[in-house]
């Protein structure tokens, strides 16, 4: 094995060591990138780093990130979100996990409005984590539901992942959007089923609102309250989704309708004030910056991995795969899953997919199906500890008592559900291929 490939492996190891030693994520990425890149190819290639950083901060599709985060924080500061989840908890009566179901539903709707990884997870974390913890949810369960629901946006169209995959795999964006719809809903369904089952098996983890408290609220009052608190956020979702479907805004810009709408809602609810606005502005600024900090410091790492020829490691492993199409697909899935432990999804797509494309194309496999398998897999990679983006983003907005351990523990069942979903799409390609064929996309 060439020296540089060994360095790439050691770099990954050093990154994990630093990460587990409690050094901030951004620092781990930056330091290992610079040190091992310098050892392998010297200072020269790092002249490309500013270009990569500039690419991140001016990336048009990332606009949804600060916009959605602003919306989330505004809803949080104006207490609209908290009331919403609370009232849903009341409305679900004695059903365990009612608020978790609401979170999944919001995840689906937010997912249908956005396709940027950080945006939905952070927004959901801001909106939902506090209220459900206050209602006695198990921290791990709460984090798991939020992370998993927050990443649904990757598979439910529109989605940045699907747009990139369309480009790499030579499929039209529309075909992949259509193909992803049912698998996305399938995953949501699996999450819902899991929450219901968990409510039966482990009632303490997602308790309903105490009966006494529920009894204190008359049905009439509940109905009125429901109307009062549910309508505004629904209006907001309608504003975002509606502006995409109604042709008012392109997917990225639609987030601004949500952000603007959250200000309007705060004003209408009578909770708007200059201090609230200032808090929201500062909170959104810090939270967005935390996501950007990690994205930016991931650049030296990505540059070093490429510069060291890290993709050759993958090539080498690929050479050892036994033949057979299913073997190749299985290997691809395994590879994406493993790379997801330490690389971000764009890097993964660029490194792994080009290897396989010629094989699949020659075998005449439907590329839309492969793309959806890949998309579900990448979505799982957002959740895999230790380096799942969703996990860090949630950690960034979680109250201090929530530990990374809680989050890791909480997402494991959802990772398994994702894998189950993946297996289903693998076994029944029609889940992905029926819709695009039916509507002729």
């Amino acid at each position, binding site marked *: 094995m060439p020296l540089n490939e060994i360095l790439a492996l050691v770099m990954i190891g050093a990154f994990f060591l630093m990460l587990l030693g409690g050094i901030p994520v951004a620092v781990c990425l930056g330091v290992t990138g610079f040190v091992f890149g310098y050892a392998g190819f010297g200072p*020269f*290639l790092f*002249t*490309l780093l500013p*270009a*990569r950083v*500039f*690419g991140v901060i001016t*990336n*048009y*599709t990332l606009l949804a990130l600060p916009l959605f985060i602003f919306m989330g924080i505004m809803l949080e500061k104006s207490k609209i979100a908290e009331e919403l989840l609370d009232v849903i908890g009341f409305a679900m009566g004695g059903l365990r996990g009612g608020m978790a179901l609401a979170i999944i539903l919001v995840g689906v709707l937010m997912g249908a409005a956005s396709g940027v990884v950080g945006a939905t997870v952070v927004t959901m974390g801001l909106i939902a984590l506090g209220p459900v913890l206050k209602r006695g949810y198990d921290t791990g369960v709460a984090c798991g539901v939020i992370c998993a629901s927050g990443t649904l946006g990757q598979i439910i169209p*529109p989605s*940045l992942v699907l*747009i*990139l995959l*369309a*480009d*790499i*795999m*030579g*499929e*039209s*964006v*529309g*075909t992949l*959007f259509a193909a992803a719809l049912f698998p996305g809903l399938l995953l949501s369904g699996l999450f819902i089923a899991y929450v219901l089952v968990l409510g039966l098996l482990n009632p303490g983890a997602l308790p309903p609102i105490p009966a006494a408290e529920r009894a204190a609220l008359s049905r009439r009052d509940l109905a009125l309250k429901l109307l009062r608190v549910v309508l505004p956020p629904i209006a907001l979702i309608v504003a975002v989704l509606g502006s*995409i*479907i*109604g*042709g*008012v*805004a*392109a*997917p*990225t810009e639609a987030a601004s309708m949500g952000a603007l709408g959250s200000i309007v809602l705060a004003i209408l609810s009578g909770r708007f004030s200059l201090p609230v606005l200032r808090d929201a502005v500062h909170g959104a600024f810090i939270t967005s910056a935390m996501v950007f900090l990690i994205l930016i410091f991931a650049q030296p790492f990505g*540059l070093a991995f*490429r*510069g060291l020829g890290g993709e050759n490691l993958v090539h080498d492993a690929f050479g050892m795969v036994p033949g057979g199409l299913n073997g190749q697909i299985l290997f691809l899935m395994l590879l994406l899953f493993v790379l997801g432990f330490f690389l971000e999804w*764009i890097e993964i797509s*660029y490194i792994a*997919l*080009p290897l396989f*494309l010629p094989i699949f194309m020659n075998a005449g496999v439907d590329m839309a199906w492969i793309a959806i398998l890949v998309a579900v897999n990448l979505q799982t990679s957002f959740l895999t500890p230790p380096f799942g983006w969703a996990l860090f983003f949630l950690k960034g907005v979680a109250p201090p008592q929530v530990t990374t351990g809680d989050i890791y523990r909480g997402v494991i069942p959802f990772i398994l559900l994702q894998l189950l979903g993946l297996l289903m799409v693998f076994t029944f390609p029609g889940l992905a291929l029926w819709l695009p064929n039916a509507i*002729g*996309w």
Partner: protein
Amino acid sequence: QSSFNWKMTNAYGPGSPFYVEGPGSPIDFCKKVEAMSDGRITIQHFAAGELIPALEGFDAVRSGAVEMNAANAYFWAGKIPAAQYFTTVPFGMNFQGMNAWLYHGGGMALWDELYEPLGLKALPMGNTGVQMTGWFRDPIESVADFQNLKMRIPGLAGKVYAALGVDVKLLPGGEIFPALERGVIDAAEFVGPYQDRRLGLQNAAKYYYTTGWHEPSNVTELLMNAEAWASLPADLQEIVKTAAMACNLESHTWCEANNAEALRDLVDNYGVQAQVLPDAVVSELKAATDTVLAEFAAQDEQVKKVHDAFMAFKAEHQAWAGVSEKPLYGLPG
């Protein structure tokens, strides 16, 4: 130094036919150079996003961190405005005219003159041929239909449309489909039938107009660091030049062959209406283009020099094409 291990970055994403891989593509160019030089030059290719973002190749090559970049020179319009003329300009020249100008009409010398002070050297390495006007949700019958039309159209052509009342929207490639499909924009320009079908635009709009007035051809630029270029021995320089020339031809013929099939497929199987813009509309576009280009040339000495040379050659070539190619197209099929 007897062997060279170079890097090439690309403004287009992985897998993209013509722009990245396939006959006459940048990856094909790398392979050709390696084969022709018996491995004395190897070029490692990086698609957009693999090493640097799409439009950062200019700076990367200039700094010397990579030796080569594949793109279109008009992407550098903000850095060196005259570079646009070495890709295409509205109502410019087709494949024959453009290459005649570059190879034999003084175009290359001007290109060198423009890039030399920046430590750069460029060669043409591909051409899409004539592009399509774009996809419209509603038919264009007169120039009045441009009023308040929302269109995704970058560059100078965008400025021409804007002069006729079009509202120009900037969108990344991936968002063209969802925006056009939902009517956020009413029209979008991309490349030609083969590439557009890949984006699925036929599912978003049905009126597919032609004349290619905005991009009568479109040159792929091989950009090189001048020092790296100068470090190559004469025989290897010749190999690079020849491979670029071969790709220029091969990429264009590949487009001609594949666009034919793609357009027929779009019309036969997707209900696409392929139409030519009405003459009256085209003449209004021409008038607006003259104004826009005149303003553009007046901004900058370099632009004026290249503009004048380009237009002088175009006038002469057009006169010849008018008696050679044009009647040929009028022959009974």
